[in-house]
């Protein structure tokens, strides 16, 4: 019976196969053409097939070769989710709240991802980032984004 000797590689190989299948599936409308007249689908499809092959090899390897590997650090879900959501929040809020409040809320919020953050420091940092990003990016580099957006009625212009 086959036994998975390296779980990480098994998952990794499978992930590569899934990625290639996704590329094949989403590209199935693309014309593949032939080697003389390659269509837009030729290159991605060939690469996907190649990646499937490599994925299979990685899986085979994971069944045959046992690897000593240091274990991962315990997952810190709260931190990971906060850090991933921070840019998403930034993207959603920027045009509505404006740069200053978005930056303030995002920096303040994401600093909770650290175990060592104190609320005083976090607020100070958030204020600092909000002010300096407005000065640097809207004033000095004139990025097309206003300091306060339409959701902040009294300050936006």
């Amino acid at each position, binding site marked *: 019976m086959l036994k998975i000797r390296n779980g990480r590689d098994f998952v990794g190989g499978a992930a590569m196969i899934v990625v290639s299948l996704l590329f094949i599936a989403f590209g199935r409308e693309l014309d593949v053409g032939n080697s003389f007249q390659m269509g837009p689908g030729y290159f991605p499809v060939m690469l996907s097939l190649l990646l499937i092959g490599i994925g299979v090899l*990685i899986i085979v390897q994971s069944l045959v070769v046992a690897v000593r590997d240091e274990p991962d650090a315990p997952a810190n879900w709260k931190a990971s989710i906060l850090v991933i959501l921070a840019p998403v929040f930034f993207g959603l809020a920027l045009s509505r709240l404006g740069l200053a409040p978005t930056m303030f809320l995002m920096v303040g919020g994401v600093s909770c991802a650290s175990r060592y953050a104190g609320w005083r420091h976090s607020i100070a940092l958030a204020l600092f980032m909000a002010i300096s990003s407005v000065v640097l990016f809207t004033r000095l*580099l004139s990025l*097309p984004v206003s300091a306060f957006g339409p959701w902040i009625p009294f300050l936006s212009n």
Partner: protein
Amino acid sequence: MDILSDLLLGAATAFQPMNLLYGFIGCLLGTAIGVLPGLGPTATIAMLLPITFGLQPESALIMLAGIFYGAQYGGSTTAILINLPGESSSVVTAIDGYQMARRGRAGAALATAALGSFFAGSVATVLLVIAAPPLAAVALKFGPAEYFSLMVLGLVASVALASGSLLKAFAMIIFGLLLGSVGTDVESGMPRYIFSIPELYDGLNFVAVSMGIFGICEILRNLENEHERSVGVKKVSGLMLTHDDFRRIRGPILRGTTLGSFLGVLPGGGAMLSSFAAYALEKRISPNRAEFGKGAIEAVAAPESANNAGAQTSFIPMLTLGIPGNPVMALMVGAMIIQGITPGPNVISEEPDLFWGMIVSMWSGNLMLVILNLPLIGLWVRMLTIPYHLLFPAIIGFCCIGAYSINNSVFDVFIMAGFSVIGFTLSKLRFEPAPLLLGFILGPMLEENLRRAMLISQGDPTIFVRSPLSLSLLIVALIVLGMVLSPSISRKRDEAFTE
């Protein structure tokens, strides 16, 4: 003298007051961010790229080059002072540099790193001046088949030099190539993998991708096992080297520079490989080999010279062929494209002031670093003490604004967030992100040249072996591949990376 007039042209660009200023700001910012633990050159450049968008192309590239050396140098400072290599190329510096610091010789270690880097940088700049024009002249004769084979060689070599599993490195290259095919197909104008999202017609933005993979992903990793960094940095004194020190570092600096200059040109090489190789070499031949690991000054001098020489000469294939050998050069290529310059052999003839200006600025940048670093070391030491929990929210903030400013669109911010998740998952599965970025950058060029070559040959794949140049490039690629696959070499490779 041709070279002389070229250099004068370069000096005229590089020594313009504004360009000197941008170079200086670049070195300063690069050092400041590179010193911060956990931020290497790739992340630093990815983060700071957007601030150069508004500049003239020459100024932008001069500033970026400054950021690159600054970040590289900042990494050595953290390696020596707190045993925390900011990037892979200063891993070996940390071994003896930190031991020197513990014995009260931090100043000497830093001075050695600075002098070695400056010497190596100057020599490598001269090499660049000599080697670049003839290489570009050869490259101008390249047809699509030769270019395709050259890129294959570059990708294979980058796998060969990656640490970890080869299969996984190949998987990452292909994943990167696939990601590169997102966007409008150049030949037919057909949209590919766009999902009716207008922002994707130009493809995934590589700044957003690399910020996600190298910037945000690094934060995710650091927060997994966050522990209070109590930075016990003492006052740094004694920057002067003794007569004996000079005698001891002379040889290692020369050897490190030579080794680094050659390894830097190799695709996939650059700073990291150079520093490892130089350390290994010194360990074998140094008369003070017994001291290695306990604070030998040779073990700081050699890798520091080598990694700076390698960093410098890795510009050669990027500037002359348009082929990036490592992620940093990939970012540089991206920056050139954003500035409206097509990297490749034509840059020398079409943009001579940009090309030579950049080269001269490399030398002046290295000089600035020495002047900047030794007296300002106290400032960098203070920056080291900024706690991580205040650092990472600021980094995320700057990355968000940076990603937004690429196209003034929040779409790239979402792309960045998405790629931080992809990068994090890949790192959990022990896949390296560097080959992915190289594949991503080279993908469109590789496909274009493949399709053109096949069109010329009317679908006959032997075109790649009929041209002698293309054939020899492919043979070299095969040899490299064979070397990596042969077990004795791969064992050596593991040794080099575990040392």
